[in-house]
């Protein structure tokens, strides 16, 4: 008997007026999860991953109509008694901050045990056991505000584990963490699964590091299970699927491309980790060497060119660096210039030390670096939210800055997206400049009453002309693909959608410089691609973009300039492809995979060009 069984399970949410929605959020799910399985749920945002997980937990079941049944250990989920449901099934949410209830770590870990009425001695025994296992002695009596995101999520996990659950349901637990914290968290989950045979059902977007040790992958689309297979098989199942192909690890993508050209590879098992991937490359070692060493003249030339280019670039970079210092302040294109910035939140603890930086017009710059190295602080200093202790920031006359916070939610203050847009337009001087004199309260009210289509088509808004982008209002909305969101409450939109709305708001304010703090956080691969397309075409339109990111692939694929922060300053300032080609550890999965053969390649597209793959 399986541990969890879905039998013809369907679910539809209630509409806001109390009727059952026609669209099924989960449609005829049949699924078995066995004891000790590690199951990964993947799918675009809004496909029903969270709905599926919450339906497994009695306390969190959303309101709506369900047909079919879900059994846990042979008992229907609804019929589990309160205490065993709370203990046996642990549920971890996305945001580490919002699920913490109490103020100290020990209190938080004790909280569920207190809830189910365990005597004091037993509670202390269980806490001591968990603390010993995870080695969190040092933070046990700390206030939760002092912890990092990764530590918070670990505390949340401990708080579930003291109840000794049989199943852990993890809803994108790593989407808010930086890569290092994610690896640590993941290795703990893996250990729990392997050493204690705790069943894990996890939904996650970035599957590169998860794939090597999972049993089953379930791909969901529009509430239906599209693919359900073990990790090795599923890679060949979804090769031609244009959505789920994106969810595969980079290693597998490379293998899939290579195996078209070299059929000898298809005998091997699909590689999931870099280790397995390297083994595959070894199989066709000779062929790869041939490509590199001059089987193909043009390729050889281009590779030589590239290397030459890299060298030249390094060279020129150094030169301009020195020249810059000699001809102080000659750079006419700079929109924002930071000079000798020192910053600290408290005395004696400098975050930034003597930072110089020029942001030039039309650049797409990314800022990378470890957690807590001061990336967000840097951005906030740049836009003037924080004041430097020493040094100054200067702006080119008349530029408009737009800043998008890590949490787009805090940009919203109105009831619907329409009002948000109108607010931005009114705040900017666009209406006056475009000679819309008769814009008053009445026309504002009128715009609010319009339906979505009328609003998008309205003459007043489409008459506006922006400095940097050629779009009309309507084109802008359609380009961002947010036509349907116009009359929604901003809080009802998903994270990716909120991100888009804030960027549109910024553009409506006629921004020249777009500054984004971690826009790729928690985005699924498709949304991430869309965002990249949007940002690239905005850049082509003349907008200047600066963003921080932990997503190295995103940076390598899209940016032309990349800053790496380290030790209170900007350590490297160069093309990301050059940076990652030089790096050994802090680099993309593609680069790690093919480092032996073509060390200068960091993105999949470049690799495909280089090895002339499909």
């Amino acid at each position: 008997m399986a541990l969890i069984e879905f039998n013809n399970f369907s679910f539809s949410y209630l509409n806001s007026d109390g009727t059952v929605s026609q669209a099924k959020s989960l449609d005829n799910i049949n699924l078995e999860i066995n004891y000790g399985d590690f199951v990964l749920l993947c799918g675009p945002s809004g496909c029903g991953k969270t709905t599926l997980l919450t339906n497994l937990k009695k306390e969190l079941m959303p309101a709506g109509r369900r047909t079919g049944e879900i059994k846990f250990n042979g008992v229907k989920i609804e019929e589990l008694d309160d205490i065993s449901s709370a203990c046996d099934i642990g549920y971890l949410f996305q945001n580490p901050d919002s699920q913490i209830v109490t103020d100290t770590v020990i209190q938080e870990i004790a909280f569920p045990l207190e809830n189910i009425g365990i005597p004091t001695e037993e509670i202390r025994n269980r806490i001591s056991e968990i603390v010993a296992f995870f080695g969190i002695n040092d933070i046990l009596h700390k206030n939760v505000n002092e912890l990092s995101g990764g530590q918070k999520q670990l505390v949340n996990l401990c708080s579930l584990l003291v109840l000794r659950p049989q199943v852990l349901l993890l809803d994108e637990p790593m989407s808010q963490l930086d890569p290092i914290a994610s690896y640590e968290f993941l290795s703990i989950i893996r250990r729990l699964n392997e050493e204690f045979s705790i069943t894990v059902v996890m939904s996650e977007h970035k599957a590169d590091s998860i794939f090597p040790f999972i049993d089953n992958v379930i791909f969901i689309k529009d509430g239906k299970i599209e693919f359900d297979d073990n990790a090795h098989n599923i890679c060949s199942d979804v090769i031609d699927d244009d959505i789920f192909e994106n969810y595969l690890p980079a290693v597998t993508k490379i293998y899939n491309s290579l195996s078209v050209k070299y059929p000898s590879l298809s005998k091997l098992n699909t590689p999931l980790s870099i280790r397995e991937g390297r083994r595959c490359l070894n199989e066709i070692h000779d062929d790869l060497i041939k490509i590199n060493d001059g089987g193909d003249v043009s390729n050889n030339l281009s590779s030589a060119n590239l290397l030459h280019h890299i060298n030249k670039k390094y060279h020129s970079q150094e030169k301009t660096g020195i020249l810059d210092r000699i001809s102080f302040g000659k750079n006419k294109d700079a929109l924002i210039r930071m000079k000798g910035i020192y910053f600290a939140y408290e005395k004696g603890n400098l975050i930034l030390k003597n930072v110089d930086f020029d942001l030039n017009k039309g650049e797409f710059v990314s800022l990378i670096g470890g957690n807590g190295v001061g990336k967000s602080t840097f951005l906030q200093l740049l836009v003037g939210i924080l004041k430097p202790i020493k040094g100054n920031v200067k702006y080119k006359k008349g530029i408009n800055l737009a800043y998008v916070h890590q949490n787009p939610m805090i940009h919203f203050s109105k009831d619907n997206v329409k009002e948000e847009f109108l607010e931005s337009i009114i705040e900017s001087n666009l209406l006056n400049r475009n000679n819309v004199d008769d814009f008053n309260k009445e026309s504002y009210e009128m715009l609010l009453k319009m339906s979505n289509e009328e609003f998008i088509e309205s003459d007043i808004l489409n008459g506006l002309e922006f400095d940097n982008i050629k779009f009309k209002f309507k084109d802008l909305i359609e380009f961002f693909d947010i036509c349907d969101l116009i009359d929604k409450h901003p809080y009802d939109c998903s994270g990716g959608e909120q991100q888009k709305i804030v960027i549109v708001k910024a553009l409506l304010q006629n921004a020249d410089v777009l500054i984004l703090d971690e826009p790729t956080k928690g985005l699924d691969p498709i949304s991430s691609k869309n965002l990249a397309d949007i940002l690239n075409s905005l850049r082509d339109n003349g907008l200047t973009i600066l963003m921080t990111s932990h997503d190295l692939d995103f940076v390598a694929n899209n940016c032309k300039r990349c800053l790496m922060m380290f030790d209170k300053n900007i350590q490297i300032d160069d093309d990301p492809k050059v940076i990652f080609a030089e790096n050994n550890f802090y680099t993309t999965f593609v680069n790690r995979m093919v480092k032996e053969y073509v060390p200068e390649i960091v993105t999949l597209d470049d690799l495909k060009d280089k090895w002339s793959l499909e």
Partner: protein
Amino acid sequence: MELTSIHPGVYLLYYFIMVLFAFIFSDPYFVLTFLALLLILIALQGVSSELKNIMKFFIPLSILIIILNPLLNRTGAHKIFLWNNFFITFEAIAYGILMALALLIVILVFSSYNKSVSYQEMLYIFSKKLPIISMIIIMALRFIPLINSRAIEVQKLNNLKNNGIDFSDEDECNASDDIAIDSNKMDSDEFNSNINTDYDSKLVNKLKSNKRTASIIKEAKNLGKIMGITVSWSLEESMFTAKSMKARGYTATNRTSYLSYKFGNADYFFLAVIIITVAIIMVGLIKGVGMINICPSIDFSFSNLPFNIYYLAFIIFLLPLIYLEIKERILWRN
């Protein structure tokens, strides 16, 4: 104190009696002894920065009490004429001083209490009888700093909005050191330093006072907006907090507590000292030892030394914590 653990219930009782005594005793010998021993205790426990802050506020307050009380209170037999018919009474001065001292003692008692009893120990006392209230306190302790940090984030963003749209409202870049001015000259046509424009607009603001009231209204609107965003953000996040509480079995059964403090030998000893000394002091209080009459006429002279069993009991009552602190220091040194 780290080397002796005393049950929070005993602490609570002890400090509660101390606060009562601070109000009851008015004999200057008793009051001054109380103050001296309390100061020794606090010195041993370590002066916290909060106490320093409180004292900054308390010293002017006590001076105010001592000055104002004789001016407002004219009862008393010993009149001191300052000029013409204007007089103050000696009794009122004495009363003012004693009142200020009593207040000082209460503040010191609370500060010492904060050092001795952590809020977790407080919760332990209350969680048995009032589980819901103690849960609310714990959640508030988490929530208040959280909402505070969120408000700061929102406010930062709001500042940006102001200087992003029109540069006249906010000083975007206030680092006006020499280098800035130099480099302004170097490329004055390209870079317009915001410092200068801001300075101008501020002057204009000061000249036009009606513009200032407009800016106050704007400030108020901004503040309202910040609060609105913070609250709706927090409510949105609280939904997850509620879900996470429910998912971890909140309200499944009656709550227990992980806190446990055992009643040990030190507690029995401490309790015995409290009971015996307080009993003797009570007998003394009934007899009138430790209290003086101030109105209508003060009946105290410094030559009446209070060397009796009641005074001794009072000193012993105040000693246990000092003894434990000193003992701890000796133990650490070894």
